């Protein structure tokens, strides 16, 4: 399988990585099937459907049935990848995800496509900035938020190999491929330290990770040493990585999600019981106004500059 091509000057659409990797694992394991809600195109699964028509189940625009069918396919020995826009998958079918997948411990992989504000101007009905909060409360469900094409591919491979329910956000927002050492490994439940630092910890996931790294560069020039940790796994949560962040005495979290209940909320729950310290939780305050994803990131400070300022504040408030 050839590596997905960049969409523009070294920026990648993670859906390409998702589709290529899924084809790779499906080639090796015929139990893998896909379930979609008329979302073949938006999931970039047209190639999969052409190659494996009998393993492509398009239930039409019917999300409750889509997730129930996924659970049934798992009962019948299949490994279904249920792929749909995250807003409809997590919202419309929440009870099915709870009862038929998480509570049932069904071997279903849920792919939340175009999460966060990826749908930009289509508005809050199509944004999915609640999915992490809703879903991370469900026991047994691993939640992965890859930040670039490499991590997306690794998350898909890990999900296919993992016996049990997994939810994976796959972003359409163009992201660069992060430089990583050859020995880099992805693991469900493990956070990844991308940059060491001693004054403040920036914990990020998904699209925000590269911005966190840029903020850390800027902080270094202003004399603040920031460590950057990529939380590609929101559940199970890497508790040790959060404790290490709290040990620094100041934390910023940043995510393409509501500022309530997502990564920031999850980190705060751990920090408050371990070593309370100043935190800044960056995310959206509520339903977003009309605008592209880039515009909305700018407007709500989900940028390198916004992270930089939040880190300075948290660092200044450090006890």
């Amino acid at each position: 399988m050839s590596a997905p091509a960049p969409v523009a000057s070294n920026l990648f659409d993670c859906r390409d990585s998702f589709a290529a990797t899924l084809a790779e694992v499906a080639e090796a394991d015929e139990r893998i099937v896909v379930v979609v809600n008329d979302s073949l195109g938006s999931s970039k699964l047209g190639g999969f459907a052409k190659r494996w028509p009998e393993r492509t189940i398009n239930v039409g625009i019917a999300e409750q049935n889509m997730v129930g069918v996924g659970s049934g396919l798992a009962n019948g020995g299949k490994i279904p990848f249920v792929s749909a826009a995250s807003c409809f998958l997590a919202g419309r079918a929440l009870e099915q995800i709870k009862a038929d997948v998480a509570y049932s411990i069904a071997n279903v992989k849920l792919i939340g496509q175009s999460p966060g504000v990826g749908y930009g101007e289509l508005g809050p009905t199509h944004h999915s900035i609640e999915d992490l909060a809703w879903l991370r409360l469900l026991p047994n469900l691993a939640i992965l938020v890859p930040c670039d094409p490499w991590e997306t591919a690794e998350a898909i491979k890990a999900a296919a190999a993992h016996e049990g329910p997994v939810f994976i956000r796959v972003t359409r927002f163009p992201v660069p491929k992060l430089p990583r050492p050859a020995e880099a490994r992805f693991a469900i439940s493990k956070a990844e330290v991308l940059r060491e630092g001693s004054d403040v910890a920036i914990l990020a996931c998904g699209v925000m990770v590269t911005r966190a790294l840029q903020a850390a560069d800027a902080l270094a020039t202003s004399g603040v040493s920031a460590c950057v940790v990529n939380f590609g796994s929101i559940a199970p949560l890497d508790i040790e990585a959060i404790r290490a962040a709290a040990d620094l005495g100041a934390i910023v979290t940043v995510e393409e999600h509501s500022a309530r209940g997502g990564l920031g909320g999850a980190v705060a729950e751990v920090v408050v019981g371990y070593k309370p310290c100043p935190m800044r939780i960056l995310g959206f305050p509520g339903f977003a106004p009309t605008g592209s994803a880039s515009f909305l990131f700018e407007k709500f400070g989900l940028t390198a500059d916004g992270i930089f300022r939040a880190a300075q504040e948290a660092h200044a408030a450090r006890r």
Partner: protein
Amino acid sequence: MSPVEAIRAKARAIREHALTMVYEARQGHPGGDMSVTDILATLYFGVMRIDPQNPRWPGRDRLILSKGHASGALYSTLAEAGFIPREALKTYMQPLSMLNGHPNRNYVPGVEANTGPLGHGLPIAVGIAIAGQIDKADYRVFVITGDGELQEGSNWEAAMAAGHRKLGNLTLIVDRNTLQQGARVADTNDLEPLPDKFRAFNWDVVEADGHDHAALLGQFAPRPRVGKPLCVIAHTVKGKGISFMEDQVGWHHGVPTKAQWEQALNELSLS
């Protein structure tokens, strides 16, 4: 004993267990337990290809009780079939029992789906049937819904998909007792014309007396390779077999007194 007599004996035992479980737990859903019992008994003791020693045998026939609140009847059936010990029934809804008020497949051998919220069983059954279709497997998939439950829209998403995909390995049995929790189905949100609805979704539809084991055996018999899922509308009586419960909406989740329990056991023993 003829096959039908054997099923009848099992049905009597299931009703007695389920009644006593509700009586002892002081909670449960006896009306629905009694209406669905003959369907369960016919499936498990006359139709389904199962191996209680190997409950997740890939080639097994599947039964999903979508109306998961009738767990008393399901657990009693699984006990009579040998999936779980009869003694376990005494723990129904007791603290930390595997026999929760709604079934959990990870606790109870033989349970296929964690039902309880209504409208979940049919989509799951459709998924299993699709898996069987992909694998060209010869197992059958049965799912029982309540009739009031068909007010949930997810059923119709699944019904449309099953008709579209020509799932001839799928049989839906509607426990048509005409009552839902709070009132008559017809007075709440009427289903009729129910057979026409399923036919319009490209299903075969038959109707049967849901307490006539011979009639149910006939409708559940293996079907030649047909290109349609089958809906069996089983006309039942909520509380069937217990005179004071029959067709009484209040017995959806009523609990019998000691005198009522004794009377009911006596009536069941004569059935």
